[in-house]
C-alpha cells in the first residue's frame, strides 16, 4: 500500500483534482445559486428542525440551533460521502474496464468532493453562531483536527463499503436503513441526557458520537477535549482506515470480474 501511495498518488494527483471538480460541477450544474446551496441547505434544514424540536418536543438545550447544526454537519458529511463513495466503483466500471487506474481514486475523490461541500457548509455554521451571538472560543483552533479525524474515518468506511457493494449489490439498500437508524442513535437533535443509562454507556462505540461531542466541546462549550477523547477519535479513524485499505487492497483486482 505504501508503495502504491508513493508512486501513484503523485502521478494521479491531477486526475483526483479533476474528479473532485467534476463531482462539484455536476452537483450544482444549472442551479442559479450554485455553491451557495451548500450554505443554504444546512441553514434551511436547521431552521426547520429548530422550529420543530424547540416548539414541539421542547428539548432543553441551550443554543439549540448551533447544537443541532454541529451534529448535522458531521452526520450529513458522513452519510453523503459514504453513500456516494459506495457507488463509485460501480459507476466507474466503464473506465476500470478499459484503462489502468488506481482504483482507490474513485472512492477517494467522492469523499474529498463531499468534504469540500462540508467546508462550504461551515460558513452556515459560522453565520448561525454570529446570529445567535454564540461566543467564539479559543478552542476553535482544533476545528481542522476534528475535520481530519472525520475525513479519515469516512474514507475508511467508504473503502469497505465500495468493496462490499461490488460483491453484494443489495448492501446499498441495507446501508440506507442503517444510516437512518444511525441518525436516530446519534444525539444530533436530542440531548444525550434523554438516553437511558444502558444506551449511554454504549454510545462511545458510536464513532460519530465521539466526533460530534468533540466538535461541540470545542465550538459550543469552549472545552479542550481530553487526551483520552483525542486518542479514541484517532484510534477510531486510523482503525477504520487501516481495515478499509486492507480490504480494498485485497479485493481490488477482483473488481473487474464483478462489475
Amino acid at each position, binding site marked *: 500500500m505504501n508503495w502504491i501511495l508513493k508512486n501513484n498518488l503523485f502521478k494521479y494527483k491531477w486526475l483526483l483534482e479533476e474528479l473532485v471538480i467534476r463531482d462539484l460541477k455536476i452537483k450544482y450544474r444549472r442551479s442559479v445559486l450554485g455553491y451557495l446551496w451548500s450554505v443554504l441547505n444546512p441553514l434551511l434544514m436547521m431552521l426547520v428542525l429548530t422550529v420543530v424540536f424547540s416548539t414541539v418536543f421542547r428539548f432543553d438545550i441551550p443554543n439549540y440551533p448551533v447544537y443541532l447544526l454541529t451534529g448535522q454537519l458531521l452526520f450529513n458529511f458522513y452519510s453523503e460521502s459514504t453513500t456516494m463513495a459506495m457507488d463509485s466503483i460501480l459507476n466507474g466500471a466503464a473506465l476500470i*474496464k478499459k*484503462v489502468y487506474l488506481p482504483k482507490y481514486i474513485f472512492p477517494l475523490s467522492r469523499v474529498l468532493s463531499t468534504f469540500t461541500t462540508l467546508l462550504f457548509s461551515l460558513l452556515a455554521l459560522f453565520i448561525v453562531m454570529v446570529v445567535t451571538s454564540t461566543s467564539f472560543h479559543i478552542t476553535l483552533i482544533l476545528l481542522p483536527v476534528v475535520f481530519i479525524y472525520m475525513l479519515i474515518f469516512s474514507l475508511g468506511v467508504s473503502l469497505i463499503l465500495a468493496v462490499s457493494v461490488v460483491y*453484494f449489490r443489495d448492501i446499498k439498500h441495507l446501508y440506507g436503513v442503517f444510516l437512518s437508524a444511525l441518525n436516530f442513535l446519534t444525539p444530533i437533535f436530542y440531548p444525550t441526557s434523554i438516553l437511558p443509562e444502558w444506551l449511554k454507556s454504549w454510545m462511545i462505540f458510536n464513532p460519530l458520537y465521539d466526533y460530534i461531542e468533540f466538535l461541540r466541546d470545542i465550538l459550543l462549550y469552549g472545552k479542550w477535549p481530553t487526551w483520552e477523547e483525542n486518542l479514541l477519535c484517532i484510534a477510531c479513524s486510523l482503525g477504520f482506515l487501516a481495515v478499509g485499505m486492507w480490504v480494498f487492497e485485497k479485493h481490488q483486482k477482483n473488481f473487474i470480474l*464483478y462489475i
Partner: protein
Amino acid sequence: MENAVEIKDVSMRFNLAKERVDNIKEWVVRKLKGKGVSFDEFWALKDISLTIPKGDSFALIGSNGSGKSTLLKIISGVLTPTYGTVTLNGSLAPLIELGAGFDMDLSGRENVFLNGAILGHSKKMMEEKYDEIMDFSELKDFEDVPVKNYSSGMMARLGFSIATLVKPDILIVDEILSVGDHSFQEKCSKRMEEMMSGGTTVILVSHDESMVKKICRHAAWINKGHLMFVGDSEVAVEHYLSSIG
C-alpha cells in the same frame, strides 16, 4: 532491437458463475439450502508467449470470444493474469472505447481535461495542446456542449484526438476506427502511420482483415485462448481465414 511488450507464459482463468449471485439475499438462501455458489472454470488464455518489438505494428486477430480483448486488457494492466507476466517498456495509451472515459454531463472542453488526466497527462500539457485537439477533432464549435448531446461519431473523434495527441510509446486500438465518417477515418489512418514512423508501437484488435493487412506488419492469430500463429500479418490473416473458411 528492444521489445516494447514482452508476454511470458500468460494464462487467464475466469470463474464463470452458473448463476450469478450478486446480492446478500440470494447468497444467504443458497447457503441455507447448502448449495453454495458453483463455478465453471474457463481458460480464456492458455500459455501465451509473445514479444512485440519497438516500433512494430501488431494485430491480434481471431474469432469472437477467442481471447483477443482479454489479452489486450492484460497488456494494458486492466486485468491481472492468473499465471505469467507482462513487461512493458514505455508509456502506454489505450484508446478508450466510445465514451467510456467521458462524463456525459460535462462539456467537450471539460472532458478533454478529464480524459487527459485519466491518461496520465499533466494539466500544463493539456492546456498547451487543447487547441490542437479541438482542431483535429473538428469540434471547436461544440466545445461547450455537454457530451451527451454529441453523436457517436463526434465522441469517437474526440476520443481519438485525445489519445493520439501525445505520442505514446505504445498505442492500443480496439476496433475503434470503424466509427467516424470517411474523411475522418482517412485522417486517423494518416495519424497512425505518422505515429508508427515516429517509433510508436501500435497494437490493434480488429475483425477487418483488409485493415489489418494495410496497417499492420505483424499479427498474432489466437483461437480459443491458444496462440496459433505469429508472424507476417498477411500470412496470419490467410491462416485465420482458411480456418474459418
